[in-house]
């Protein structure tokens, strides 16, 4: 039978690096996906994965097994990703994606579904870019990963009402960006 995450955590706490390696191997791909959705960049997602496991390793003693290891590690990952976005925002003036968008929207919509699908994907990506770190994270977790509101609030350190509001703002931005694709639906 496969060893549970909790057993691995306990062994890792006792200094068993092989146990920690198994945890890394089990969860790195999932964390990478979440990190990618928040950072929209594979190099950043890689860094988030590294930082997440490093922080997890340092704070293994605080893991009490109440949440699943997946949830616990994802919580750390989301925070790492937000830190990364924050530091980037501080470093460079925020990239204004509205230019890309106008370019995107002004392109003649091809009747072909494939092309439309690709354009829609780009518009979604642009909308995600236009969101604040919290908005994007809340939206990604709720919409793509189905994480409950309370859990998202706990990750972001905000109350449930604020979480709802954050998701609403994210959805509003998304709807604005997707208008060209959905507004004229007959």
């Amino acid at each position, binding site marked *: 039978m496969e060893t549970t995450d909790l057993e691995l955590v306990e062994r890792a706490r006792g200094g068993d690096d092989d146990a920690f390696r198994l945890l890394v191997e089990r969860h*790195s791909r999932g964390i990478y996906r979440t990190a*990618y*959705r928040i950072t929209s960049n594979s190099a950043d997602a890689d860094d988030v994965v590294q930082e997440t496991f*490093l922080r997890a390793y340092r704070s293994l003693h605080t893991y009490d097994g109440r949440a699943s290891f997946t949830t616990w590690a994802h919580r750390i990952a989301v925070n790492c990703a937000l830190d990364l976005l924050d530091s980037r925002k501080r470093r460079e003036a925020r990239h204004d994606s509205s230019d890309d968008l106008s370019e995107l929207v002004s392109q003649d919509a091809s009747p072909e579904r494939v092309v439309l699908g690709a354009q829609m994907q780009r518009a979604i990506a642009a909308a995600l870019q236009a969101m604040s770190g919290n908005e994007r994270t809340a939206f990604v977790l709720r919409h793509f990963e189905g994480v409950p509101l309370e859990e998202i609030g706990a990750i972001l350190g905000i109350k449930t009402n604020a979480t709802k509001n954050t998701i*609403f703002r994210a959805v509003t931005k998304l709807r604005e960006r*997707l208008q060209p694709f959905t507004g004229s639906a007959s």
Partner: protein
Amino acid sequence: MNHVTQEEIVMAYYGERFAHLDDCEECRTELARIAAVLDRVDAPEVPEPDADYESRVWQRLEWRLRGEKKRERRREWIRWGAVAAVVALAFVAGLFWQRENRAVAPQSVSKPAQSPNQIVSQQQNQQRQRDRILLVVINEHFDDSERILVELSNLKPEEGLDIGPERARAEGLLASNRLYRRSAEDRGEENVATLLDDLEPVLMQIAHAPSQVSANELRAIQKRVEAKGLVLKLRVVRANVRGKTAASYQQPNV
């Protein structure tokens, strides 16, 4: 009738129950409109990492964890080392003082054994011995630094080079660099202090670089090392310091 808000409709889409929606055609239409948009929002495609992904993550992580453990051990070591160093310093200083005191005895024969002058000279000797020990320690520090700089200077700038080991060492040296610089300044060892001063920003740059540097980042480090002529300076100052300390260590035996 109070309609639900736009925010509530979004929450309804994500599963929250609102009794109002059962009765209100208008709000249900609005929900359907929002659902039509959100239903089409699929997760942006995440480039699927290749089959080796997990092992690469572990490889990169493993040595960082090793660094983590080393730092832990170093902290432990520093705690004990600090105690040991004080004991050793006191012992060595005492030993040298006794020998030197005997060596300089002819000068002090004419004076009473406990003259204020002699006490002052005892203190000076002790201080001088401590300075020598400090110089020996700093010289080791220079030696370590030089090795890192030479290693990095010899790397061919490529993307994603792993300078993890150098970075970890630079990080360790950075803390002591500041300490030594202050001590060297206090003791009027100007050459040493200046070199430590030049060294600090470079060590900082290396310590704060990502473990996998880009070609540009590496080039920037190499340029800095070269511009300051650091490797050469390190060699010159080390040779000087070595000469100084060697001379003073032999002295008591003469």
